[in-house]
């Protein structure tokens, strides 16, 4: 058990090092910082709601660049592993494929967490310069972004492992991310009184398969609840996000254990 935990941490640490040193990911982080800095200018376009424009744009960009970090980190590391075949050496060591994948998941999550926290710190600094008051709900909104990104790591990893090539996997991941922001609309179909039962059933199935990113969106509370955090909702969203990511990881582990390298 201890040996497995040490291997898990070794894989996670190695993945993290690979990601944080990669030039493309460093450039992406710099670009993200520049874009978030740009939201300082965007606020000028919303007279009377400058504070909200700054925070909303900043949080939206943080999530977007966080997702790009997820996709690029996984694409770059998977490219080196599968296309350049460096995974052949790693997997001939006494490490199971499932454990390797779990370690990689942790490593990518750590990379994404640090990048996201850096972007959020920059946003807070900009808010400070702008004398914008940021309440406690900012923490909930930030956690919501992180949960969205952890779920994204889960399904992106699954698509990259299960598809025959990395480009297809990446394309599926991007589509899933976009659809995940629209899943809430399925609820309207499910609860519609005039909707046929077959449609309701299909919508329900899709609702449970697709990620519902609206569950992680606490940004409205920044303005509605005067700084309070709705803890039960936050707990429910965290449980949903972590469970979704875990299920993706389990399916990815199964697919990877059958994959011929």
């Amino acid at each position, binding site marked *: 058990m201890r040996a497995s935990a040490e291997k898990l941490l070794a894989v996670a640490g190695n993945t993290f090092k690979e990601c944080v040193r*990669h030039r493309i990911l460093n450039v992406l982080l710099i670009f993200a910082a520049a874009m978030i800095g740009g939201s300082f200018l965007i606020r000028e376009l919303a007279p009377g709601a400058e504070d909200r424009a700054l925070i909303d744009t900043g949080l939206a960009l943080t999530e977007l660049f966080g997702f790009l970090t997820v996709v690029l980190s996984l694409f770059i590391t998977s490219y080196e592993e599968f296309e350049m075949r460096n995974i*052949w*050496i*790693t997997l001939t*060591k006494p490490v199971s494929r499932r454990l390797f994948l779990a370690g990689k998941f942790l490593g990518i999550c750590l990379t994404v967490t640090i990048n996201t926290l850096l972007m959020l710190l920059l946003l807070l600094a900009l808010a400070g310069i702008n004398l914008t008051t940021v309440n406690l709900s900012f923490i909930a909104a930030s956690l919501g972004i992180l949960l969205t990104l952890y779920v994204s790591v889960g399904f992106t990893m699954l698509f990259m492992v299960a598809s025959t090539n990395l480009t297809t996997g990446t394309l599926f991941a991007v589509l899933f991310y976009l659809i995940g922001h629209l899943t809430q609309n399925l609820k309207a179909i499910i609860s519609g009184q005039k909707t046929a039962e077959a449609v309701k059933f299909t919508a329900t199935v899709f609702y449970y398969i697709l990620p519902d990113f609206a569950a992680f969106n606490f940004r409205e509370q920044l303005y509605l609840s005067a700084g309070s955090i709705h803890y039960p909702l936050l707990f429910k969203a965290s449980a949903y996000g972590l469970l979704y990511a875990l299920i993706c990881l389990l399916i990815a582990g199964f697919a990877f254990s059958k994959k011929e390298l």
Partner: protein
Amino acid sequence: MDAIKTKKLNKTYVSGHFWSRKRSVALVNVDLAIKEKQVFGLLGLNGAGKTTLMKILLGLVSPTSGKALVLGRDIREASNRKYIAYLPEMPYFPRYLTPREILTFYGRLYELSNSESKTRAAEALQTVGLYKRADSKLREFSKGMLQRVGIASLLLNDSKLFFLDEPTYGLDPLAAKEMRDIILGLKKKGKTILLNSHQINEVHRLCDRIGILHDGRLITDLPVSKVKGNMEDFFIRTVKKL
């Protein structure tokens, strides 16, 4: 005990979509037994099935049918890979890591402690002449230097069985000689080696026994001492006969 034993090993690759499946046979009823402490040379033309056989023995690919045992166990079980080491043809490592880091990482996968991994990584880099470049990024390394890092990765653990796929590929004559010396050193220590190489003279010099794979079939398996005349002529004669 046999270090490697296969019984009626078959592998057919299936590709394409379900409406246009393509099958290509890579291995046909391969029965192979390599004794412990033996250096076995696997010869064959390109596409003969050598890499597929090695990948099955390493647990990277599953056989379609048949059995493969490595050190008496099923290699697909991770814990059974503790005493094997593998050097692929043209090894590739994460570009932004250093040789010291990647070797320490492999050491930790071999269940060595962090400090032990670091010590062994340093020793292995010293052996292959890369100690001075231990902290350079691997993306700055030439093909030959990457091959040396691969060789260093073989020396981390006290492995019993070594799988070497074209170990002198990309090495300059001096480095190739050093590689052969490392293989001879392993042989002296009583390690079992499966050597996959197109360098017939190298196989002749290093191996106790050879096997020739042709179109997925093991057509010859005999001690090197029984090869009559020149090894290269023997190989060409054997393959052309079919």
